[in-house]
């Protein structure tokens, strides 16, 4: 049984149409992804040690997958030995139940969160709000998204599709709701100052801080948290209770493993050699300490991960959520993150969404949201073979007969027809002759029959006037065909 992901919202054609019809978003996403991809390349070029560590990090991550259960047991023992609590959650409902039980026992009403994909995955905010808790996202981008009641558009830069004018409007509305002075203008310092004031109050008043986690170190029971803004430190230092929700795939064995892994996420994600803040949290506040949480809880989230261990898809669990594959993906650069209908977008989302939520949850992603260009394979610091996994998902989808049998039969016959030279030549000849009727400005924009389904959403360059075979025979008379 796979896990459970939140519903995608609108159906795929609708999401795609909306994305393609939003030039502001597309320009913003195009700009931010290109800039991040360039920064990543520059960081690895400037820091050779980073590349050497990356190679060792890939080995450490894959090695850890081989004994995930033992590492989780060790991690649990270590946290409990220091007075922390560890719970295992099979899916979204388990996480919600656990957090609400802690909240009830503590009489908690206000929750601050630092950015976490795992809690997005289990729709924790919705679960807590339904139970009457006040939940505030504190990462600046997530705060903007929360005010806009939207989903993150990018793993690392959730509000990268929002312009400063849109952000100012959201902040003005929030100021009116809360009775606080609005931002003085739409310059970055003014917007940032408004968020700082608002969120500072939230931090100081919060009863519970909820975070995700970038890594777990089994040998000491340590939670590793990477942020740039400092909201992660606030969330784990100020409220009396800290609850971390972390996927079981984030566990590594030792500090030696972590040492080579730690810088890969910032280097690949934003081109920083290290994030502004990296926190290693080993249990709750100790006797004599005046700050830090009294209670430390770690919720280990499965939600479809465990059953991927030992399968052909296992390597996807080594993902460090850096977003490097998003930044180089031509599809992501064109449609942005929200069209994917999942908190995991881009190439990693195309693979992870159906693997965690079930293929029936998002069959369109492997089928339609990949151009098989392999750019993501080259960008992934963990060397996850994303194109291969996407192909495997396409194949599984066909095999599970989620397509009507006629389509399957058509592809089979087509495959046999083109496997024969005569069939392929005939097709090319017919296309050369017939394509003129379907061309517009030098592109094929329509096509007859089944092929018309393909061109309904894409243009194709025309078939060349001369085929390769014709060219070969013309330029090399006498040579074997």
């Amino acid at each position, binding site marked *: 049984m796979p896990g459970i992901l939140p519903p995608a919202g609108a159906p795929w054609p609708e999401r795609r149409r909306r994305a393609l019809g939003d030039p502001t978003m597309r320009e*913003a996403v195009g700009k*931010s992804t290109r*800039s991040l991809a360039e920064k990543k390349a520059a960081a690895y070029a400037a*820091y050779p*040690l980073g590349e050497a*560590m990356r190679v060792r990090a890939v080995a450490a991550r894959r090695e850890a997958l081989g004994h995930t259960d033992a590492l989780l047991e060790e991690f649990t023992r270590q946290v409990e030995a*220091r007075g922390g609590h560890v719970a295992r959650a099979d899916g979204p409902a388990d996480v919600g139940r656990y957090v609400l039980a802690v909240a009830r026992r503590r009489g908690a009403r206000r929750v601050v969160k630092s950015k976490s994909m795992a809690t997005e995955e289990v729709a924790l905010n919705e679960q807590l709000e339904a139970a009457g808790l006040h939940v505030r996202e504190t*990462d*600046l*981008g997530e705060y*903007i998204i929360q005010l806009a009641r939207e989903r993150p558009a990018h793993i690392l*830069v959730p*509000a*990268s599709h*929002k*312009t*400063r004018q849109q952000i100012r409007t959201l902040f003005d509305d929030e100021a009116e709701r809360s009775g606080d002075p609005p931002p003085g203008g739409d310059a*970055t*310092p003014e*917007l*940032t100052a408004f968020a*700082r004031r608002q969120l*500072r109050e939230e*931090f*100081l008043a919060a009863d519970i801080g909820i975070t995700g986690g970038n890594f777990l170190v089994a040998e*000491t029971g*340590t939670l590793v948290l990477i942020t*740039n*803004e*400092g*909201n992660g*430190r*606030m969330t*784990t*230092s*100020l409220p009396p209770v800290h609850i971390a929700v972390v996927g079981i795939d984030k566990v590594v064995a030792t*500090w030696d493993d*972590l*040492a*080579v892994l*730690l*810088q890969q996420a910032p280097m690949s994600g*934003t081109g920083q*050699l*290290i*994030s*502004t*803040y990296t*926190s*290693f*949290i*080993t249990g*709750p*506040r*100790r006797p*004599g*300490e*005046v*700050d*830090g949480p009294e209670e430390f809880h770690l919720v280990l989230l499965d939600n479809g991960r465990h059953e991927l261990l030992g399968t052909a898809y296992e390597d996807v669990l080594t993902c460090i959520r850096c977003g490097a594959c998003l930044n180089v993906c031509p599809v992501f650069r064109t449609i942005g993150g929200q069209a994917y209908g999942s908190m995991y977008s881009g190439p990693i989302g195309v693979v992870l969404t159906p693997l965690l939520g079930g293929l029936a949850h998002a069959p369109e992603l492997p089928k339609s949201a990949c151009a098989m260009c392999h750019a993501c394979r080259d960008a992934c610091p963990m060397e996850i073979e994303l194109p291969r996994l996407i192909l495997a998902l396409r194949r599984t989808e066909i095999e599970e007969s989620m397509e009507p049998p006629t389509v399957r039969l058509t592809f089979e016959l087509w495959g046999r027809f083109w496997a024969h030279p005569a069939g392929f030549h005939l097709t090319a000849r017919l296309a050369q002759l017939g394509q003129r009727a379907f061309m517009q400005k030098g592109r094929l924009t329509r096509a007859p029959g089944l092929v018309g389904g393909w061109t309904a959403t894409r243009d194709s360059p025309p078939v060349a006037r001369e085929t390769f075979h014709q060219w070969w025979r013309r330029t090399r008379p006498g040579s074997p065909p």
Partner: protein
Amino acid sequence: MSRADPADRRGQEQAGLVQEFMDHWEALSGDAWLALGGVDDVRRAVGEAVRAMIPDRASGTPAQVVAWATEELAPLGLPALLASLGCECVWWTDWPGGAAGAGDPRAASAAGPADEPGPAKAAVLQPQELAAGSDLGITTCAWAVADTGTIALYATPSTWRLPSLLPTAHLALVRPSQIVRSIPDGLRLMAEHRAQQGDLPSAVNLVSGPSRSADIEGDLAVGVHGPRRAGVIIGEW
């Protein structure tokens, strides 16, 4: 120059690490001061840092500075120095009930219950309010990294978390000998600490410059949640 004196070479290496650490810290929009001439030189640098990092107060009330009450900072005589700069210096101590007050950090350190409570105003403040109301937090660090411009802060009863997080600015004092080459080198020092003390601290924070965000149109903004300014003094004292 066929054979360099090993001590010389170490000295040169250390000087190189200091320079690289400063360069990288400044590249991350942090402020840095060098003060290798002893206690007085470090006190001079603290004065410069305070003047640079705390904005002028129109109201005329003294700026508030919160510092770690540790043996390590004691020789600098910060309370008198800060008073001469027009700042009020507060320390957090682990006295029962949590009192805070101006004074000699040695008297206020974890050594034992002190018999003189701090000023009445400070006595009612929780550590959180104390740090949040401060313009500057002064700490030392456990180690620093040249390659990345990073300082490591260990949470203990006297070296608490909030002075480096809640005040408007944070100033860390770093000794040249604490600067190592890379993050893995620093993590090895952490492993040594664990071997000696029996455990890691409850929290270790690596800090590389001031709080930053690029969430608004990819435009770099400093000081979203944490300190708006982050300074280091590399000094011998």
